């Protein structure tokens, strides 16, 4: 398993953002669903080794990220796209991706080819030399995805990756997710259940810091056949599980 989490918690002062989450994920696309404030982003930040958990056990890529050496090794094999992507406006697309390739300590000789590949995979080859300040919000999101995948990560964490993408790009992105998921563990946090239905092999639903559902998209859909609300089957499963958890 690339991701092994048990009883993970995280507190910010008096607020408990993540309250005892246990999950396991191997290669494939893992969808993380949940309403605003459910704790998805905090869970992803812990998995990205940006913040440490308050309690619980976290193992990534068969390593314990609590200690320096393994954490550094995990980070070399990690791709992360945060919810709010900051960027340096003066950098070009290629420079920004190269910057993160170097920060991920990729072998320098491999960097130029890896950058070109990553930029091409997000359909930004034509904009490789464009300054980031000139790009639209959707293009910036794709730049964020490019920097996340530039090192061919074994563990890819994407927080709201399709926010701002147009429908065509979203379709392309789902295809990319499926391709990446063939050999890496891709964890996608999203509000958009159609993304989960189209690309994910496994899905977890979080609410109030806890995982209230863990299964396949089909199993989630099945939960909504009788009492869920929504336009799509998966949405009905989503609302049904949430309603049951809050009942």
């Amino acid at each position, binding site marked *: 398993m690339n991701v092994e989490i048990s009883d993970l918690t995280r507190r910010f002062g008096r607020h408990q953002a993540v309250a005892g989450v246990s999950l396991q994920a191997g290669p494939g696309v893992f969808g993380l669903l949940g309403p605003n404030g459910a704790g998805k982003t905090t869970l992803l*930040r812990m998995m*990205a*080794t*940006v913040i440490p958990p308050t309690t619980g056990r976290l193992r990534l890529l068969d390593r314990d990220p609590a200690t*320096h050496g393994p954490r*550094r*090794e995990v*980070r*070399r*094999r*990690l791709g*992360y796209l*945060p919810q*709010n*992507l*900051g*960027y*340096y406006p*003066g*950098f070009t697309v290629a*420079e920004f991706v*190269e*910057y*993160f390739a*170097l*920060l*991920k*300590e*990729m*072998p*320098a*000789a*491999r*960097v130029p*080819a*890896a950058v070109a*590949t990553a930029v*091409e*995979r*997000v*359909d930004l080859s034509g904009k490789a030399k464009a300054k980031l300040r000139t790009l639209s919000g959707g293009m910036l999101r*794709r730049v964020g*995805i490019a*920097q996340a995948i530039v090192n*061919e990560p074994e563990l890819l964490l994407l927080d709201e990756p399709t926010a701002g993408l147009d429908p065509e*790009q979203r379709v*392309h*992105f789902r*295809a*990319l997710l*499926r*391709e990446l998921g063939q050999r890496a563990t891709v964890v996608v946090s999203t509000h958009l259940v159609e993304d989960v239905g189209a690309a994910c092999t496994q899905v977890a639903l979080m609410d109030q810091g806890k995982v209230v559902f863990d299964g396949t998209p089909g199993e989630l859909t099945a939960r909504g056949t009788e009492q869920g609300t929504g336009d799509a089957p998966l949405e009905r499963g989503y609302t049904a599980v949430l309603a049951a958890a809050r009942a």
Partner: protein
Amino acid sequence: MTAASAPAASRPAAARRGAGSAVLGSGRLLRLELRHNAMLWLLPVAFALFWYNGYREIMALPPMWNLRAMTLQNRLLFDLMVPAVGAAAWMGSREGRRSITDLVAGTARPRWSRQLATWAATTAWAELACLICVAVVYLITARHASWGGPLWWPVVVSVAGVPALTAIGFAAGAWFPGRFVTPLVTVVVFFGLAFGTQATSGDHSYWQISPLIAGAFDIGAAPGVATFYPYLPDLSIAQVMFTAGLTVAILGALGIPVARMRWLAAVITAAGLAAAGTAVALAGTGRLDPHGMIAIPALHDAAAGQPVRYTPACGRSPIPICVHPAYAGFLPAVTTAVGSELTEFAGLPGAPARISQVAPVYQQETGNGINVSAHVSGASEFIVPDPLPGQPGGTSTQFAANLAEGLGLQLASRVILGGADQSAGAAPSQAKLAVIAGSVRFPSSVESRDLAPLYGQVLPEPGSPASLAAKRFAALSPAARHAWLAGHLAALRAGRVSLAQLP
């Protein structure tokens, strides 16, 4: 986005990552940082500030290496301070301002290493600006200077000061990321540097550690300093030790929050602080040496006290005047200022065959006061007065007046009095004083009472019979005065010439 399969990537195992790849990676990172550094865009500002504040003043100085090098040290860091500290603070706060902290926190390269790359790029551009300014000043000075070569210690101090400035700015930006930290830290460092130099008091002051101070505070860049004797590097060494220690301490402190490197960073910080503290303590033991520079006993090399060998530059006046070759450009002005006295007294008994410039002697007084004197023997030696034309407050008229009051009066007194009256302590006759007063071309501003405390002579009071006789004598040409003195000097010295007998 395409789902085309990516090229098979060989996994970079930690063990296989060679040092060469790491260096190459760091080099590429540095190149990126250099290309996108705020200091690059502030280079024109740095050059404009230096041109306005430092360059014009330095170039107005006489082309003497000591004057220009020491003034350069005093000005350059101050002029670079605003762009360097500002750019460093801006770059240091970049991750926080751009909300990219989470993104970079999840990468393998340690934060310390990442920050050092950004700081190094900022510092590299600031150093480039510093070196370009030095190169311009030194190249122009090399074309105009009549003697000597570049003084490198002031340059070393400035070059070592730049990383300290950028480290202060960068650390402030990294620790307090925000838009306002840049102007705030720039203003604080500006006033810190400015007031730091003003706080200096005497040769034992700890504040001499400021890298803007190139010598004793009250004389600073003086023509007589580091001309007859070598430039003493004592204070410069302490200043470099201080700025290097400060830089290391600040950069080390940046690494303290990194858990695994906390101890290493703490040790580096402590070492830097120790170096900086030691340097401050050393500066406090400084003393003004007789040659006008600050000597620090623990750093002092006794061999540096040997005078510099030189071949003097001599004029062709009736009594030749010889100056240190660094002053060669001022020889015509010196000769002109006392030309009539040289013609008048040449060949007379007691007149020197040659007059040579000697080194001034500096002595620390209370506070920042420094006494400048000369150990001259007879009328054959003199010191070229400060300030030279071109130095702050120095004009050609003032320079000539200072020479007349110094060398001219010294020469006239020596020849007319013959040394006898001074050594015996007897008051010279009115006729002798009238001849002295008539021989020396005092500027119109000089009154008799001005000179009394300086030379032990009381020149005739305006309107007195002696004063009238002096004016009468002064109306003669130098050749006529020489002819009269050739025939009457012995009688004049013996007191057998009255005021009425003066021509």
